[in-house]
């Protein structure tokens, strides 16, 4: 059974169309992340799923039931908010049981459910406190407890980690993922942070300007982004996208960066037969920074080694990020942390050509 099906959901605010026909189908137990830059419509979409906002057109189906005309409380959902939205004047205990109280759940069941969730999230010592007496991470846990206690068909998370500091965010990220693995709930999770999307999702819906750009598992989204927007949005530092010319080669097409220049880089693309129709035309070549390493690095295939001028070096500790020139175009590379090429000089770099992506410069779609 599908946990959530969206069919051609539109949302207009006056003349502006915020959602331009969203269709998604999400299986039971899936962890779906809606990711995109601010203003892409992801939070509006989540509010529509929750019933806090009405779509202008389209249907929403939760657990096999069309819920367009069903009130939020009757949709069998639970939601965790960015600000946690804990009721300030209630204790943690009351915060968690308030929903059950509204639904007239018998006191005994309330107590049992509360005890269960408190144990799962390890918030038993906090039950008597008010939200103002809790730390950020504790509030986050209580907000999740309030959602978990309902045992709904569908969990909705609206940027739940963006108010936490960086360290806590990583911890809570793991905790949410672990929780999902333990209880196997269906989750829709909204974030603008592509790392959160990559690390937690079973499937990612990348949104931009009110449309789903790609809906696929994290590996596919990362390795084969459907278009240039996805390629540039996912990954940090982002994928290098360089203009190139595709030429016919010996058994495989060759991409030339900086065609006609002395320092043009020629990359033979084995297994890119799908790009045959683009031979002799301009393309956009996408290559992830981790596919450009110091010369001498051995990828599992034979790398192409080039000499390229170095413009800037950023040591991060775990790796060194290098801004270099490939056939005159700027590109980022991730090299070993102990390597420090000098800006202004040339260094040798190894390019892994097996995971290069080619995009149509007109439609910006992935070719191969």
């Amino acid at each position, binding site marked *: 059974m599908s946990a959530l099906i969206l069919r051609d959901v539109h949302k207009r605010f006056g003349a502006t169309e915020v959602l331009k026909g969203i269709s998604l189908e999400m299986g039971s137990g899936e962890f779906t992340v809606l990711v995109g830059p601010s203003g892409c419509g992801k939070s509006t979409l989540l*509010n529509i799923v*929750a*019933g*806090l906002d009405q779509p202008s057109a389209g249907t929403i189906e939760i657990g096999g039931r069309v819920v367009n005309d069903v*009130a*939020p*409380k009757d949709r069998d*959902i*639970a*939601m965790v*908010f*960015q*600000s946690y*939205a804990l*009721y*300030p*004047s*209630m204790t943690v205990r009351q915060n968690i049981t*308030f*929903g059950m109280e*509204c*639904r007239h759940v018998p006191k005994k069941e309330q107590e049992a459910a509360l005890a269960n969730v408190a144990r799962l999230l390890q918030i038993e010592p906090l039950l008597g406190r008010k939200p103002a007496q809790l730390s950020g991470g504790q509030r986050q846990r209580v907000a999740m407890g*309030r959602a978990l206690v309902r045992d709904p068909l569908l969990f909705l998370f609206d940027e739940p980690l963006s108010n936490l500091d960086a360290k806590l965010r990583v911890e809570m990220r793991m905790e949410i993922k672990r929780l999902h693995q333990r209880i196997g709930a269906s989750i829709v999770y909204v974030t603008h942070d592509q790392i959160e999307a990559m690390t937690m999702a079973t499937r990612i819906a990348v949104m931009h300007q009110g449309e789903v750009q790609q809906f696929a598992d994290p590996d596919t989204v990362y390795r084969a982004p459907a278009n240039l927007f996805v390629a540039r949005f996912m990954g940090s530092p982002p994928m290098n996208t360089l203009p190139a010319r595709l030429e016919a080669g010996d058994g495989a097409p060759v991409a030339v960066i900086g065609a006609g220049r002395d320092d043009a880089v020629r990359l033979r693309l084995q297994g890119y037969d799908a790009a045959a129709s683009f031979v002799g035309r301009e393309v956009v070549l996408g290559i992830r920074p981790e596919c450009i390493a110091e010369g001498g690095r051995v990828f599992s295939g034979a790398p192409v080694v080039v000499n390229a001028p170095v413009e800037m070096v950023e040591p991060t500790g775990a790796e060194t990020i290098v801004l270099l020139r490939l056939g005159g175009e700027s590109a980022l590379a991730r090299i070993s942390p102990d390597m420090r090429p000098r800006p202004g000089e040339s260094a040798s770099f190894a390019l892994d050509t097996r995971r290069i992506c080619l995009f149509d410069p007109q439609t910006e779609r992935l070719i191969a």
Partner: protein
Amino acid sequence: MRDRSFAPSRMLIYLVVSLVAAAYLVPLVVVVLNSLRSNVEIAQTSMIGWPREWAFGNYLTAWSDFCVAQTCAGIRPYMLNSALVTIPATIFSTLLGAVAGYAVSLWRFPGDRWIYGVVTLGIFLPQQMRLLPWTIVLRDIGLINTLAGLVLIHTIQGLSFTTLFCRNYYVAVPQELIRAARIDGAGFYRIFWRIILPLSPPILIVTVIWQFTHIWNEFLYGVTFTNGQQQPVTAALIALSAAVADIPQHGVQSAAVMIAALPTLLVYLLGGRYFVRGLTAGAVK
């Protein structure tokens, strides 16, 4: 170290401030002193003077013996009238204003801004302009010359201010609280009762003080829509000074004024701290 408080510029500031304060306080002092002088003493000397004999009896007379409009029960019944108007009207207008402010600040519905605009427009309408409409309304529903009529007027007139106060306080409440409560299954009134009202004491105290003082001190409606035994104390005080028979009763009148002013003074003394704090507060987080 030089004591700056005796610098000439300082002295000038103190002088000016003291003069302003004195100008403000002189009438009060005159009334307080006169309330403690016998009528004969005032008549024989002047309106301004130190009591030769303390006449505390003035207060007793003013409270329960003095004659107003052919009835000799002092201002006690009129104080009761004022209380019977002010207390319910304060409670009703504050509660209704809190619900209305909550509705227009935290819920979106068609025409919400328009309704808020019209309600608060009442603040800017002069009282005199509303006299005639109220006359017609009170006549048609049969509440002319009743305390209930005054309660109705003050409850509705008060809504403009109470709605404004509460709305401005509630806009600081995060929208997500309402969303979370709706998903939890709470409706409009349950959210108000369980989540919003517990956050409201600061603004409710402000509103109650504001309403209590204004309704208690209100004169125009009281004198227009009630007469005789139904008048609130502000209106009765005028009748009292008009009921002067042979010799002027300044001592008793002053005592009556003091008694009439006491409730609002008490409310301010008890809640004044919260008043100043509440007007500047707003953040709920």
